[in-house]
Each structure stands twice: as structure tokens, then as C-alpha cells.
């Protein structure tokens, strides 16, 4: 896969605050790459360096094989974080306005239809709901039919149905070969959309891999959580008391009945039993915590 986005040892500081501290990554053509990490981890700064709206203090970045500021704007789409376009343009006027800035743009009505905003296309941006506003901004990022699309928290404030509709849209764009750089706090979004995920913490890449690789490496085992205040001594099982309840690690689903019987036999008063597989969020929590403690081997 040819890399369309490359960052090598990128450093960026704002005064005494280090935003990026030697970040390196490469994103291939047609790949969906998610950047996750706590607030202030440097995700937006990295996106800005990759789009050319910020200049790294050290290291190098490439967008479509060129310096980002020299890359063909026609091929790049951006949805910035905390982006607020003019409130007194209708959704259609807003998308038409951005379409008018490009050599070749898609029909605004078609793009609005794709993001599910066609019923509200004549409503002023300021009168749209928060989720509709974000969808209008997504439409503005898509109107030039970009080859590389930067989406900085694209579904913030969007309701679950709207979020799923946008996810489907992003998946169809990725299927058509669009490279997508996604930043998000939503691990379900990253797990569903991303081919690869990088966890950024304190300006450094703590881990990179496919969602499956990160889960396997960092998320721990499948677990059974028992809602009880008691701490029974069950010699055959490895249990741990956490904020969630009594947690049994490495439990196969077929073993849940055996553990319930063992709890009964021990006279434990318990409520719900919930079994779940490890998720990307578990990997994120483990990595973010380790990164804060400086324990992730890089």
C-alpha cells in the first residue's frame, strides 16, 4: 500500500507544553486510520501538522507525497474539531459555499442526501440541532470528493441513529478507496471503522495496530462481572474485586454456569452476572493508564 500520509519523528510544542514528542506513523492509500487518546494527547495537533495548518518544530510530514502545504487541495477534505461555520447560511448554502471554492465539486444536494440532511437543507445552520450541524460540517468536508479525508471527532454530538448513518457513509467512502484519518474518543467508532488504530498519549504514540491486535495485546481476557458486595473464597477461580463488582478473568462463556453454581454453593448473595469479551475500550484504558505512568514500551 502506498503511503499517502507520513509523519516521521514529528515534534511540536506550544510554549512549555509539548503537544507532539517524536510521533511517527504512516497511513496507506484507502486505509482508515484512527487516532485515539485522552484530551490533550496531541491528536488535533497531529492532524493540523498533517494537513499543513500547523508546522512541526522538528521531524517531517508528507501528504500525498508532498509537503502538506504543497499538496493539491482538491484531493484533501477536512472536518476540523470545534468547527463552527456561518450560522446564517442554510445547510444547502453552506455546502454550496464550500463547493464554490473548489475546481471540481459534487452536487451539494447529493452530499446533503448522503449525510441525511436533505429534509433540513433549507434550514439555517444556526437553527439545526447539534447533530445536524455536525452532519452539515461532514457534508462540507465531502463536497470536493477528497482522496484523503481528515475527520476530527466527526460524530461528536450526533445521536446514535445519525452516528450509525455517518459510520455507514464513512465505510462506503473507504470501500471506494478514500483514505480516512479519524480522531475520536468513541472506541466503538474506532473499532468499527478503523483498519488500524494509534493510541496517542502525552504527545507520543503509545501503541499502533489493528483493533484486534490492540485488544489481544492490551485488553486482557474475557471477564465475568458478578454484582455482589461479598468477597467469597473460591479456590478454583481467579477473582478480583473492582469498582464494577467481583470480576473473574479468563472466563469462557460455557463456564458461567459453573461459577454461578459455585457462588450459590458458597452462600454468596449476588445479583446480575455479566460476561463480556475484551474491547478496544479496555485496551485504551490499559494503554492510557500505562502511558500516564510511563509504563508502555515504545
Amino acid at each position: 500500500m502506498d503511503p499517502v500520509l507520513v509523519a516521521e519523528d514529528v515534534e511540536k510544542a506550544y510554549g512549555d507544553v509539548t503537544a507532539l514528542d517524536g510521533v511517527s506513523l504512516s497511513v496507506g492509500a484507502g486505509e482508515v486510520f484512527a487516532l485515539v487518546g485522552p484530551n490533550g494527547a496531541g491528536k488535533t495537533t497531529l492532524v493540523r501538522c498533517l494537513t499543513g495548518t500547523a508546522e512541526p518544530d522538528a521531524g517531517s510530514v508528507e501528504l500525498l507525497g508532498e509537503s502538506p502545504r504543497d499538496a493539491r487541495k482538491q484531493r484533501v477534505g477536512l472536518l476540523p474539531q470545534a468547527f463552527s461555520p456561518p450560522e446564517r447560511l442554510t445547510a444547502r448554502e453552506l455546502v454550496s459555499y464550500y463547493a464554490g471554492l473548489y475546481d471540481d465539486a459534487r452536487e451539494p444536494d447529493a452530499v446533503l442526501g448522503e449525510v441525511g440532511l436533505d429534509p433540513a437543507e433549507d434550514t439555517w445552520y444556526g437553527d439545526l440541532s447539534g447533530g445536524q450541524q455536525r452532519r452539515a460540517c461532514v457534508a462540507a468536508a465531502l463536497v470536493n470528493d477528497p482522496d484523503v479525508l481528515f475527520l476530527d471527532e466527526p460524530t461528536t454530538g450526533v445521536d446514535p441513529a445519525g452516528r450509525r448513518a455517518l459510520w455507514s457513509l464513512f465505510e462506503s467512502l473507504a470501500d471506494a478507496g478514500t483514505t480516512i484519518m479519524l480522531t475520536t474518543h468513541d472506541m466503538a467508532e474506532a473499532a468499527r471503522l478503523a483498519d488500524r488504530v494509534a493510541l496517542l498519549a502525552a504527545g507520543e504514540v503509545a501503541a499502533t495496530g489493528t483493533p484486534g491486535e490492540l485488544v489481544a495485546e492490551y485488553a486482557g481476557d474475557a471477564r465475568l462481572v458478578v454484582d455482589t458486595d461479598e468477597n467469597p473464597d473460591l479456590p478454583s477461580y481467579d477473582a478480583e474485586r473492582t469498582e464494577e463488582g467481583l470480576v473473574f478473568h479468563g472466563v469462557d462463556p460455557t463456564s458461567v454456569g459453573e461459577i454461578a453454581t459455585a457462588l450459590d454453593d458458597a452462600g454468596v448473595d449476588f445479583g446480575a452476572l455479566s460476561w463480556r469479551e475484551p474491547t478496544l475500550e479496555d485496551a485504551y484504558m490499559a494503554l492510557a493508564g500505562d502511558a500516564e505512568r510511563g509504563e508502555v514500551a515504545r
Partner: protein
Amino acid sequence: MSRLDRIRAEATGAMRTFLRRRTAVFFTFFFPVVLIVIFAGLVRTQGGGGAGLFSEPTGYYLPAYLATVVLFTPLSRVGSEVARHREDNRFEKLATTPLTRAEWLAAHALVNVALIALASAVLVVALLLTGASFVLSPWLAFFVPVTSVLFCGIGAVLGSLAEGQDGAIAASNGIALPLLFLSETFVQPALFPEWFRPLLDLSPLVYFSRGVRAATYPEAVEAAGSSGVVATNAAVTLVLAVVAFAVGAALIPWTE
């Protein structure tokens, strides 16, 4: 897609946005008219000699009334637009489109020129209704737009350097008010101490004031060398406008 198409797209969006802010539209036109109503309509300055405020006939103050729109409107509008675009991450988005800083400023200058031309026309009609005597010189079609561009450039500088919209508006008002009275508009040079008068040349508005007065005030128009005064001040205004536009465009916080 040509440069002109991009400027047209930006200008269309900016004009629509402005025209839908009713309060801003109202005060853009109301402010100069209220000045005329007070001073030309109620006070009715007809000139009586001396060197006091409003001691000249109303026509003498045409550059002053026009200055209220060519100065205040672009300074505050472009200044606050730049600050708003930065706060709302609109420049970050625009920096990834083919639009350039200069095209953005050109588009917003065009919008301001159109609004100011309209406001100036309203103002001239209002002055005529008061019975003021002045020449409707074609030079007005040069001075009004070029000076508007000049102050669009300065507005862009203020908006780029100010911390936010409030700061940009405060800075533009803080600069515009002294300029309005230190540019041979409402206050004649003779009212200032002699040592201060050369400093009036530092005001970019003073060349507008001198040029428009030389082109429109009957006494000045009839004076020998009037056309030379107009041309000289027009040339200085044009140079200042080009410099202000270039500096304003270069400072727009397109990228970090």
C-alpha cells in the same frame, strides 16, 4: 475554477451572512444617517466664520460624514470577521481549500465596498435633503471604495493581532474614533496646536478627507490647483490601500 470564482463564492457567502444579521445591517446604515440628522439637520451648521467645531457650511463636512462609513464599517466588520473565523476554526478549514488569504480578504473587501457604497449613497441623499451644497464629483467613486479597502486591510491586521472578537471590536473602535477626529474631517487643522498639525499627515484617513473635500466642497473645487490636490491625495490613498491590503492578507491567521 478561477480565482474570481473562488472570490465570488466567498463574497456571496459573506454577503448573505451579513444581510441576515438585521441589527448589523440596521446600524451600518443608521449610524451615519443619525450623525447627519443631528448635525446637518438639527444643528444645521451653515458656517459663520471662525474656527470652532461645525463652523463651516454642511457641504464642508461631506468627507467627515463619508468617513464614518469608510472607516468604522470595514475596520470593525473585517476585524471581527477575522477574529470570528479564527475562533470558529474556519480558517483551518479554508486553509485546506484552494482559497488563499488574499482571495479571502478580497472577497470581504468587495462585500464591504458594496455595503459602504450603498451607505454612502444613502448618506449623500440625506445630506442633499438638508440643503447642503457640494459637488457630486466622480472622484467619490474612487475615494470611497479605495479607502474602504485600505481600512479592510487595517481591520484584518487588527483582527489578526487581537485575542478575540471583543478585542478586535474594541481595538477597531479605539483606533477609529481618534482617527475620525484627527483627519481633517469634523475638526479643522486650525483647531490643533501648530506643533501637532504635521502629525495629522500620519492618519491614513486624512488623504481621503483632503481629496474628497478638494473634489466636492465648492470653495475648494473653485480654488486653483484643486485637481492636483485631488490627484495627489488619490495616489497616496491608493498606495496606502495596496500596502494595507498586502499586510492584512499576510497576517490573516490562515495557519498556526
